[in-house]
């Protein structure tokens, strides 16, 4: 007879389960944590490799010449930005048109759920400016996006300058097979979301935006550029997007391949590569990098303007130029060459990036762990829940206190009544609904009657619901125990 249909064997298995439940759970927990920590150990990881055949092995010789001009344009942009006190829309439109792009603007406004603490405003208004470089000979079915945010103050001026410099250089090339959209977005994520929503004709956030007058084809890949200094010492890539979504690993592989080719120092999570994986400090460095990636994904917020593209199945990443205290500096021409090379490779794509992994962790830029390797760790932690549930089920079926004789035990398979199971189910659903609706609904009432701000009101309501819920398990447990006693007697 089979393992589970033979009553003797089943009884033995069940008794094993109940007897060793706690040790097995502890073992699973320990194994899960060790497995996860072990993932950062280099021999257990795989080297990154380019999976997409279209972005194959041959590299192009990049020839972007005008880094200095890009910096000058950036300074002009900064001056105009200061003069206007926001986004210099007219100057950007004029400059992009001078470079031969089809320029369009989009205005948007968003009502914030909580007023901005700094500026006491409810509505954020802004304008996006974007220019489309049409592919000289190709049909307008596909597009690539290069974006730079228009940030207040001294940030990201060089990024916009480089964007315009690259636009000028790309315009004189005839080998583009996809339209390239150069986008300067205001208010970072809000502007980017407005642009994407309008581009894809959706409206998920309820923002007000003017429809886009000009459009490219379906976007194959996007790169967001952040550069705030004239020279950089390293180049960082940010992959984590909204809800922890990641772009295809091939985008990171592409970035790393070009970093190696051009000879720029490249980092991920702001951390450099290290060669000493067998030492303790090397291993802890890798663990830190990996855990930083895990935390950033867990936070759910997009860590760059690229994060919003991922929802539309567009592979996107943010590249940041970082200027720290290092001897070797890289100038903007080299950065331009790196971007040119990346765009030429993306130009060769015939299909969307899909050959490489979508779920992965990177302990360093040259090594990765795919979902097939880190899921078992979570699986082990989930097995603990399963074991505890089985233990509880077995206890319900055969309460250990009431055992007259061995044989009678197996016969008496009294399953708990529907009501006793339904009650905690309904209560937990109600609690969930309360947590979901109450904080935002009662926000205004709370602000009126209590001396708290809107954000504090939301948090405090949630805490109140949690505190009320603390009493629930105790009550349901007591209720269930009384039910069991009724059944027994």
């Amino acid at each position, binding site marked *: 007879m089979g393992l589970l249909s033979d009553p003797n064997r089943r009884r033995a298995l069940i008794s094993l389960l109940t007897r060793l439940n706690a040790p097995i759970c502890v073992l699973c927990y320990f194994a899960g944590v060790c497995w996860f920590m072990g993932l950062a150990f280099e021999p257990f990881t795989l080297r990154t490799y380019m999976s997409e055949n279209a972005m194959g092995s041959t590299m192009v010789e990049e020839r972007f010449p005008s880094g200095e001009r890009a910096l000058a344009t950036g300074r002009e942009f900064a001056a105009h930005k200061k003069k206007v006190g926001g986004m210099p829309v007219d100057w950007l439109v004029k400059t992009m048109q001078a470079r031969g792009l089809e320029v369009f603007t989009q205005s948007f406004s968003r009502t914030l759920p909580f007023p901005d603490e700094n500026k006491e405003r409810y509505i954020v208004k802004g304008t996006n400016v974007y220019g489309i470089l049409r592919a000289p*000979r190709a049909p307008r079915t596909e597009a690539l996006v290069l974006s730079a945010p228009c940030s207040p103050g001294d940030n990201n001026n060089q990024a916009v300058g480089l964007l315009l410099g690259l636009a000028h250089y790309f315009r004189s090339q*005839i*080998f*583009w*097979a996809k339209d390239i959209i150069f986008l300067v977005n205001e208010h970072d994520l809000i502007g980017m979301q407005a642009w994407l929503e309008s581009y894809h004709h959706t409206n998920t956030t309820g923002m007000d935006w003017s429809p886009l007058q000009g459009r490219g084809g379906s976007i194959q890949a996007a790169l967001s550029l952040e550069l705030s200094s004239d020279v950089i010492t390293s180049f960082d890539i940010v992959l984590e997007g909204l809800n922890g979504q990641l772009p295809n690993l091939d985008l990171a592989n592409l970035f790393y391949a070009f970093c190696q080719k051009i000879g720029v120092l490249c980092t991920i999570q702001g951390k450099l590569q290290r060669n000493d994986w067998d030492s303790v400090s090397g291993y802890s460095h890798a663990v830190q990098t990996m855990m930083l990636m895990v935390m950033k994904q867990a936070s759910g917020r997009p860590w760059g303007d690229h994060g919003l593209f991922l929802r539309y199945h567009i592979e996107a990443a943010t590249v940041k130029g970082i200027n720290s205290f290092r001897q070797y500096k890289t100038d903007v021409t080299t950065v331009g060459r790196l971007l040119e090379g990346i765009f030429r490779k993306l130009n060769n794509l015939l299909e969307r990036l899909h050959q490489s992994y979508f779920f992965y962790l990177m302990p360093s830029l040259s090594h990765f762990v795919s979902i097939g390797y880190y899921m078992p760790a979570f699986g082990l932690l989930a097995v603990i829940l399963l074991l505890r549930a089985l233990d509880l089920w077995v206890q319900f079926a055969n309460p250990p206190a009431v055992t007259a004789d061995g044989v009678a035990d197996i016969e008496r398979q009294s399953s708990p009544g529907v009501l006793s199971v339904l009650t905690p189910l309904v209560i937990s659903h109600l609690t969930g609904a309360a947590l979901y609706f109450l904080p935002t609904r009662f926000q205004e009432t709370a602000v009126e009657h209590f001396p708290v701000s809107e954000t504090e009101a939301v948090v405090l309501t949630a805490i109140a619901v949690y505190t009320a819920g603390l009493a629930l398990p105790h009550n349901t447990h007591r209720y269930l125990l009384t039910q069991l006693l009724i059944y027994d007697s």
Partner: protein
Amino acid sequence: MLADDMACNHRNPKPATVFSHKNMELNVYGDDVEVDYRGYEVTVENFLRVLTGRLPPSTPRSKRLLSDDRSNILIYLTGHGGNGFLKFQDSEEISNVELADAFEQMWQKRRYNELLFIIDTCQGASMYERFYSPNIMALASSQVGEDSLSHQPDLAIGVHLMDRYTFYLLEFLEDIHPASKANMNDLFKVCPRSQCVSTPGHRTDLFQRDPGSVLITDFFGSVRKVEITTEAVNLTDPIKQVEESSPIQNILD
């Protein structure tokens, strides 16, 4: 038959040209190139139909082989291949057995006099192993178990322009002119291992003549054999014939 249009690809910085080397000396996609099957028409079925002549009656003459028992045929194949197959269009393959059977069908119907088969793929020699029809000579760029490699990349475009065997074969053939007396033994020596990295191979056992006596121009250069006949042929005057048969001439007069 060209499956990919590289000359007119949007990514070609030098449109309508395919150069053999980055020095841009020789444009192999010049004015004298005529492509009969392009793009999605290049399938195994179409290829075998062209060879065996089993085409629908509506097929234009430019898409037919139009060969008879006095024709010498040159077949040159290149692309991705392996042990016993050549890849067509990402979704199909032609096997060496199919090819051998197609050639046998051609022989049965006397659709060729002599056939020269050149293949430049990985493990190309496997493609001619199965031939069994007479008068076939075959050359391949690599033996079974070897890869055929490409020549040099052009860093302005970002691709390798040509395969090694094809490059050296082209270099050799550019020196052949219609009056050349070079024979097949010279062709077998093209691209030795030092240049090609793989070992080119050839097969001559099915060929009835000795390879040393076969001129390269028998297959290349459109050199046709002229036969002198001593008999006289009477040609009737075509204009008189038309005058007798059609009354329209009288109206025009």
